């Protein structure tokens, strides 16, 4: 992902390097820094009290709570799924391994809207299980369950993708050694496998969480935009913006932006301190 450390080469144009750096810095400033400043600028445009009021708004609070709830369910589940998937792919040989790998990557290559739509097609009123669900009074679409399902699907690859190269690189000799020394499978997993992947796992969970909290497309399809009930923070931003409530929209957006900044700091810290224990593909 981050392609650092490519050796510096002699350039034929001596002035080119600083120019390129300057150009990239300008583009970054225009495309990333400026919008970020605008978010915070507009959020505080009418003063701090208005900002605080916008955040304390009951709908905003429930949106934050819902976002946290969805992430709190989706992220741990994806951490477990991700570890399991990476474990079986990295440590065992079986038929259909390539297909499984492709399948894990599918959410990355698919539009999030489709990831949301599949749940509507399955569980929506007109969906495959629609009649049965209505009969039994189970609500999935336009409810928290749907949001969780959509989020899980979209964020599935993060943990697995992070762990697979690392676990393949580490091989299974240490686990085999633990077994011959008398450890059970569970003990081996807890005392050998997990410690060996802990930082990569944390890294994957971090990315997964950032996406889970920031996801818009997939949850937008299944949410139904019921204010205070099924709007997560990103949806809440959109709803307020469509209502011309700019302070409210940007205040909520500033929360998301802060989440992004915190994630970035933690991620950089991890890369800096534990680069050796993260994926092999990031090590070079």
């Amino acid at each position: 992902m981050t392609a650092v450390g490519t050796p510096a080469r002699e350039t034929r144009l001596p002035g080119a390097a600083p120019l390129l750096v300057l150009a990239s810095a300008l583009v970054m400033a225009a495309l990333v820094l400026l919008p970020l400043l605008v978010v915070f600028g507009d959020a505080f445009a009418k003063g701090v009290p208005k900002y605080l009021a916008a955040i304390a708004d009951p709908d905003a609070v429930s949106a934050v709570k819902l976002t946290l709830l969805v992430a709190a369910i989706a992220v741990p589940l994806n951490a477990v799924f991700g570890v399991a998937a990476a474990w079986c792919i990295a440590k065992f040989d079986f038929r259909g391994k390539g297909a499984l790998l492709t399948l894990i990557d599918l959410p990355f290559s698919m539009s999030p809207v489709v990831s949301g739509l599949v749940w509507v097609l399955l569980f929506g009123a007109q969906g495959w299980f629609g009649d049965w669900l209505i009969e039994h009074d189970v609500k999935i679409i336009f409810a928290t369950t749907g949001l969780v399902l959509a989020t899980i699907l979209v964020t599935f690859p993060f943990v697995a993708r992070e762990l697979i190269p690392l676990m393949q690189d580490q091989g299974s000799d240490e686990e085999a050694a633990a077994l011959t020394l008398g450890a059970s499978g569970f003990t081996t997993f807890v005392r050998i496998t997990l410690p060996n992947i802990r930082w990569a796992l944390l890294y994957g969970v971090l990315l997964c969480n950032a996406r889970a909290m920031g996801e818009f497309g997939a949850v937008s399809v299944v949410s139904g935009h019921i204010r205070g009930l099924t709007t997560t923070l990103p949806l809440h931003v959109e709803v307020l913006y469509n209502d011309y409530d700019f302070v409210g929209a940007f205040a909520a957006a500033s929360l998301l932006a802060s989440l992004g900044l915190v994630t970035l700091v933690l991620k950089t810290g991890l890369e800096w301190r534990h680069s050796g224990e993260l994926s092999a593909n990031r090590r070079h």
Partner: protein
Amino acid sequence: MNSQPTEDTEGRTGAAGGLSLDIRNISKSFGRFPALNDVSLQARDKEFLALLGPSGSGKTTLLRVLAGLERPDAGEVRFGGEDFLSIPVRRRRVGMVFQHYALFRHMTVAQNIAFGLTVRPRRERPSKSETADRVADLLKLVQLEDLGGRFPAQLSGGQRQRVALARALAIEPRMLLLDEPFGALDAQVRRDLRRWLRELHDRAGVTTVFVTHDQEEALDLADRVAILKDGRLVQLGAPNEVYEHPADPFVYDFLGAACRLPGTVSDGRLTVADWETRAPKDAPSGAVEVFFRPDEVMFAPLDGSGLAGEVKAVVQRGPDARVECLIEGRLFELQARGPTLPNGVAPGLAVRVKPLRPHVYPKP
């Protein structure tokens, strides 16, 4: 161990019988690749057995079958009278040393060594101080007293290897399995560790099976050597026995440098080009392949007996010399020891080369 009375009794029965490890008709394939093909071999109690073969010969697979890390497709393994294959890895109590040591990278040396003790069921687990004492003893045994607090990444290859061995010995293994134990070490460390390992084996008194592709190591270290090729056991015997009587051309070739020439055997006489000699015992009749070691030859003047050859180059090194010699249109690199090299052997000279101990195998 008092808590496992049945195992102990059976173990002793096996020891009394002298036969400790009995491998019968083991086959194992990975997909379509047959890694082991009907391998049977036995080891006596406390024996030091080497599995020798080129890469892909199945030796490591056999070791992993013994450890319980691979399940064979067919065959039987008995150890100390027990059906070994029905025992899961963690209850076999085999001490395995992996080729790349497989030390737990996030644990210190002391924690690595203690691991096997700390994962025991609570009833059998030694106390903290007992564990610490045991670790200290083992560190002393492998001569790493001061390194208990280090992490594997902070050790040299030889040190890691000894930690791996100490970790395997900590569980008081009934059998020690070593996968290319010296594979990743440089020549000097190798030689030192080799002697040390043999002493350790003799003191610990456990049946040891080790895998190597280095014939010198196997011949030097083991009580008996099992030579594998393409998943089959080709020969099993004491080092001297297999060296003196290689079962087939492959073994002859694998155990040391070999020169080969075509020949014929009839009426107990061996003829190679214009040289005729008494055929070795049990030599097959008809067209044969004649093998001899490049350092087991005698040089003679042209009127003597032996294969006619022409010296191409002589490289003298102390009392010994490497003599490049053209025999029957092929160039051989022969080794001449001081007394076997007559004076005046020089490039361009026609000589006779007499193989001292030719081996004869039927032509394939």
